[in-house]
């Protein structure tokens, strides 16, 4: 993994790379270099996009996008060192009116991940062909996975205030008499 680190640092600057003992490489980068970094990794053999996730650091008022890459097998019969490694790329974007560029041109299977992040966190991805709701049915004021969405209060307000059928009947009788 040291060779890979040297190659990356010679091409890109303003990155921070940290290699952990169990074959994991963490890269912290600015948001403008993410696309070129992803295409560099795809051309050098890491062609499996595992996950696109997001952390909500509400104290710093930033979102942190996480891209996780690994390698499919180059040779069908034997297992090489390359397939054990996992590369985790992280950037930070501001929390108010969050938006970012889509990576569908590089990895084709990023489409449902970005659709889910738009629905659950409220991040807009420019260039995405369809940003329609995927899982949710009702409309929410704050997107549900943010840290300032209180689920217990929401459940009390929405579901707890609907009365049972007996209560509605009694209310109607009391109103009439």
């Amino acid at each position, binding site marked *: 993994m040291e060779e890979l680190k040297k190659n990356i640092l010679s091409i890109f600057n303003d990155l921070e790379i940290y290699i952990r003992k*169990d074959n994991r490489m963490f890269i912290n980068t600015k948001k403008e270099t993410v696309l070129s970094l992803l295409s560099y990794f795809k051309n050098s053999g890491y062609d499996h996009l*595992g996950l696109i996730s997001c952390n909500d650091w509400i104290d710093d008022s930033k979102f942190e996008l996480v891209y996780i890459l690994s390698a499919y097998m180059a040779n069908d019969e034997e297992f090489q060192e390359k397939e054990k490694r996992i590369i985790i790329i992280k950037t930070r974007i501001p929390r108010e009116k969050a938006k970012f560029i889509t990576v569908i041109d590089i990895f084709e299977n990023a489409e449902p991940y970005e659709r889910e992040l738009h629905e659950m966190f409220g991040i807009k991805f420019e260039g995405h062909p369809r940003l329609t709701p995927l899982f949710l049915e009702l409309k929410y004021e704050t997107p549900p*996975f943010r840290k300032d969405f209180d689920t217990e209060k929401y459940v009390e307000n929405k579901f707890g205030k609907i009365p049972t059928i007996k209560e509605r009947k009694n209310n109607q009788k009391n109103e009439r008499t």
Partner: protein
Amino acid sequence: MRELELYFGPQHLGMVGNFSIKLKVEGDRIIKADANPGFLHRGFEKLMERRTWMQNFPLVCRINVVEPDHMELVYSMGVEKLAGIEVPERGKYIRSICCELARVGSHLFGLWAYSNMLGFDTVAQWAMYHRDLILDLFEELTGARVYHIYIRPGGVRRDFPDGFKEKVIETLHKIGGKVPDYNATFFENSLFKKRAEGIGKLSREEAKSMGAVGHVLKATGMKYDIRKIEPYAVYDQVDFNIPTREGGDAYSRLLTIRDEMIESVHMIFKLIDKMPDKGKVYTKTPNPFKWNIPEGEVYVRCESSRGELGLYMVSDGGDKPYRAHFNTPSYNHGLTVLEKVLVGESVSDVGNIMISLYVVAPEIDR
């Protein structure tokens, strides 16, 4: 010809699970397919942030209904990596035996769904009966048929009862002795070959660019299996093969599944021989109400019966997880691969393709 919009909705006889597809059809051919998930969404990742590390462990197994052991395994591996706990040797062997039994049971469930849909009722009844024998073994070991709650952070919950090893060997001989009948009735039947060959074809380049894993990729000829690439539990001390086929259509996928089941049964016999006779099965963890785990983030993965399953977990030094995100194999198979593969096929083959990809609906929605 005019276009027609059909809802292959949640209440349908050809659908296993609560999932729906919106189809645009011209005559009998499909032009466009839109997957419509979300009927089983509970917001797991938000629920996990409000419960402590040990309270999450009975909750995690309900993500995949058919085969919950691998979910518990991946969560326990994540917590052990963050906290720095080691699992004793006998506990690792018991974990591997549990996971291989769950794999056989889950493949038999898929065989019930597929052969019932094609019309081979006899094979469906046999497959469900053999899966019930495996669930009887789990009931004796853990106390429940479906949701086991057995693989915990630190090891497993309790040791084998007396006489359990002999029962496992007897049940597996019963199931293995029926394999020639399965072959003669279903897998070598010429009707099955005509009905499943050439349906839902994927080439290897297309499968790689769409993010396919598991048996969908093994049916195109690549031996991609996490048990060999990054061995967890005791998979590096047992030798086994990985079956592959060329072809990439529904016929090769079903044959790959049959070969995988036979390989798992042989592996359980080898593991039972090699297991150490005595030893502890779990390491003690601190008081669950006051257990704080140091800061860090981790990404672990394992091989479930549908493909590569991963978990990304972040801890900020407290007693609850800060963020947990599951990466399930049915997410890619049900949303990206299904929409591409259905274009150009006939309407009567939709159930055939969907069940041969082994899409399980609660894994997509979480």
